[in-house]
């Protein structure tokens, strides 16, 4: 085995270990000087990115990868014949690769942006340490195949996010937002832990594949499902559990908000994994034995659709009346989360029973349900890029003017030419305007939703148009209008910030112009990995399925 194969083999562990160790080494490296520290952080994150590329290539070529910590393939066979691994397992399919790919892109760009944006702040050694721990926890949540391990990473994510939201500790609002975040997150995490207890009591296992193989959908399983989904939906920002999100996103430094988006999406990934893999027997199964669960699946789908539509509307309406730039974008982010949940809901609500001669002969999903799921997964990355870009633009404006209030700004396009262009691209992309990336994923969501229920699709389209109106308002009040005397001396932001925003713009344009490049190579395989839950289970418990 050559070194390349060895690194590829251990890449799942290294992807978490490298940023973790880098985080703890950063205060030490900071002792030399800030340039060396910055170089160290970005080089180590690039190495993590390289490892993710290796793992991604391996998974796309050879299928699901499992990585057992602490030893070889330690398999225990119970008297019942059930075999399972006793150690913590990372199980990586294309969905996991898709998520860690998003996380590393956001992490690298967020760190590059931080170099200039945070330059004048104190305590940057601690800042980078906590950011790297946040990145580690996000990657861990997205790689693990163990529910308790997921909870541990979720907790690390909560604590580090709280510390970073409160980074501008001299601002009372930042502390308040951090307090609210830790209260809400901890309570959510506790309910998640309670759900794990219920599942562990039932199945004597915490491995996702093992539980997925045994799930019965008893009353206890149903209770665990609700607790997990409610906790993860709150972490993802689903209305009416979204209220921590505008507070936190609005008060954290924009470079942090950018990386926090990845952490939020990790919770969303958790919801995907739980619904489609852990409870795959219930929601994904097309086996006639699960006939009685079709109604439950449809009901869950309609609940999610209802919450998604409320999320979209509340997000857009609240964004319209905001006067704080970052808070406005945060509400737009809430609306975008609604679109992602809409796709999940449509997928679940479109399961149906096939009848021949009055008797049930099969269970199936409608053709458009796959498009809804693909659109939903594609929208995860588009949401991260589009909303992330807008946060970085808001940060650039704050950097240049020290203002976040829309009422106090105007005419900035004269001084901030590149930032204005980046904002316009972000505006069009987030509103789902062609030919940018947001259009492709929203089109998939609109069309699939339309086939399920035209009224819901129309609401979704109108909300997107309203989102455009919201950002046109921002564009007018911040960038257009006569030159304001107090902004005459404002200069364009430093190059590293422009490079960070420019990098996202390039990705947005590429994804917009060549949507099938992403859909065929990442999104559709990720959706397949989610729907083929039996493959996920059989990789950990060979011979059982």
């Amino acid at each position: 085995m050559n070194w390349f194969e060895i690194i590829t083999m251990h890449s799942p562990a290294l992807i978490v270990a490298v940023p973790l160790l880098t985080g703890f080494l950063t205060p030490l490296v900071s002792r030399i000087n800030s340039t060396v520290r910055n170089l160290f952080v970005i080089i180590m994150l690039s190495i993590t990115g390289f490892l993710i590329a290796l793992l991604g290539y391996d998974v796309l070529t050879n299928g699901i990868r499992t990585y057992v910590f602490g030893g070889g393939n330690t398999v225990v066979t119970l008297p019942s014949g059930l075999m399972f691994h006793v150690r913590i397992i990372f199980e990586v399919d294309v969905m996991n690769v898709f998520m860690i790919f998003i996380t590393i892109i956001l992490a690298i760009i967020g760190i590059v942006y931080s170099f200039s944006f945070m330059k004048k702040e104190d305590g940057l050694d601690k800042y980078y340490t906590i950011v790297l721990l946040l990145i580690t926890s996000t990657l861990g949540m997205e790689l693990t195949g163990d529910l308790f391990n997921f909870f541990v990473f979720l907790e690390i994510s909560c604590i580090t996010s709280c510390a970073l939201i409160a980074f501008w500790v001299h601002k009372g609002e930042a502390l308040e937002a951090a307090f609210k975040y830790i209260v809400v997150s901890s309570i959510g995490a506790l309910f998640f832990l309670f759900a794990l207890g219920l599942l562990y009591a039932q199945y004597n296992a915490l491995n996702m594949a093992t539980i997925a193989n045994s799930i019965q959908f008893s009353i206890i399983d149903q209770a665990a499902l609700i607790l997990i989904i409610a906790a993860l939906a709150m972490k993802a920002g689903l209305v009416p559990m979204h209220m921590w999100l505008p507070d936190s996103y609005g008060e954290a430094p924009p470079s942090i908000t950018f990386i926090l988006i990845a952490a939020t999406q990790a919770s969303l990934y958790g919801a995907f994994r739980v619904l489609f893999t852990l409870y795959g027997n219930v929601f994904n199964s097309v086996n006639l034995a699960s006939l009685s669960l079709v109604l439950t699946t449809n009901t869950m789908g309609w609940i999610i659709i209802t919450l998604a539509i409320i999320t979209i509307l509340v997000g857009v309406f609240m964004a319209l009346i905001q006067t704080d730039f970052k808070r406005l974008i945060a509400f737009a982010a809430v609306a975008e989360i609604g679109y992602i949940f809409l796709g999940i809901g449509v997928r679940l609500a479109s399961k149906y029973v096939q009848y021949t001669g009055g008797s049930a002969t099969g269970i199936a999903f409608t053709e458009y349900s796959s498009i809804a799921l693909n659109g939903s997964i594609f929208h995860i990355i588009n949401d991260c890029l589009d909303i992330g870009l807008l946060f970085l633009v808001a940060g650039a404006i704050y950097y240049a003017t020290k203002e976040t209030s829309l009422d106090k700004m105007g005419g900035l396009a004269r001084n901030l030419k590149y930032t204005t262009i980046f904002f316009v691209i972000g505006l069009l992309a987030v509103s789902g305007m062609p030919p940018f990336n947001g259009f492709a994923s929203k089109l998939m969501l609109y069309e699939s939703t339309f086939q399920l229920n035209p009224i819901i699709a129309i609401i979704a389209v109108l909300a997107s148009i309203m989102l455009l109106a919201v950002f046109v308002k921002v564009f007018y009040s911040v960038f257009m209008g006569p030159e304001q005397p107090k902004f005459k001396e404002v200069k364009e932001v430093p190059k590293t910030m422009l490079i960070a925003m420019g990098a996202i713009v390039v990705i947005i344009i590429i994804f917009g112009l060549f949507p099938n490049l992403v859909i065929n190579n990442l999104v559709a395989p990720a959706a397949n990995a989610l729907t083929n839950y039996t493959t996920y289970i059989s990789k950990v418990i060979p011979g059982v399925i």
Partner: protein
Amino acid sequence: MFSLDSFFETLKTGSGFWNPLVWIIIIAIAFLLIYVLRSLGKKEYKEKTEQTQSFLSGNPEYEKEQMHIKGSNVYWGFTEALKWAFNVLRKMHTGNASDYVLWFIIVMGFLFIVVFLTGAL
């Protein structure tokens, strides 16, 4: 593995399709037509003359800095007409952490009721 054919593929969405490159070509043609039409217009516009001054129904023009409409005033009519709805939403966002947790409990309770009811069927 990675398929490069995907670059120029048309995205099929079940009942529709989307090809950004075709869209760009059409938009480019449209812009070309607009440019041609524009160039056919009169060329009598003179900069820095009375032609460029705003006419505000005979009222004097304010200083340019004062002419900018603030962010909170944009869409004033729309927000005023839907004031009742915005007030409900504003009241919902209390900023109180206890309320945030309460909403979480309400959603969870709602899910328990619905899933248990349908699960029992």
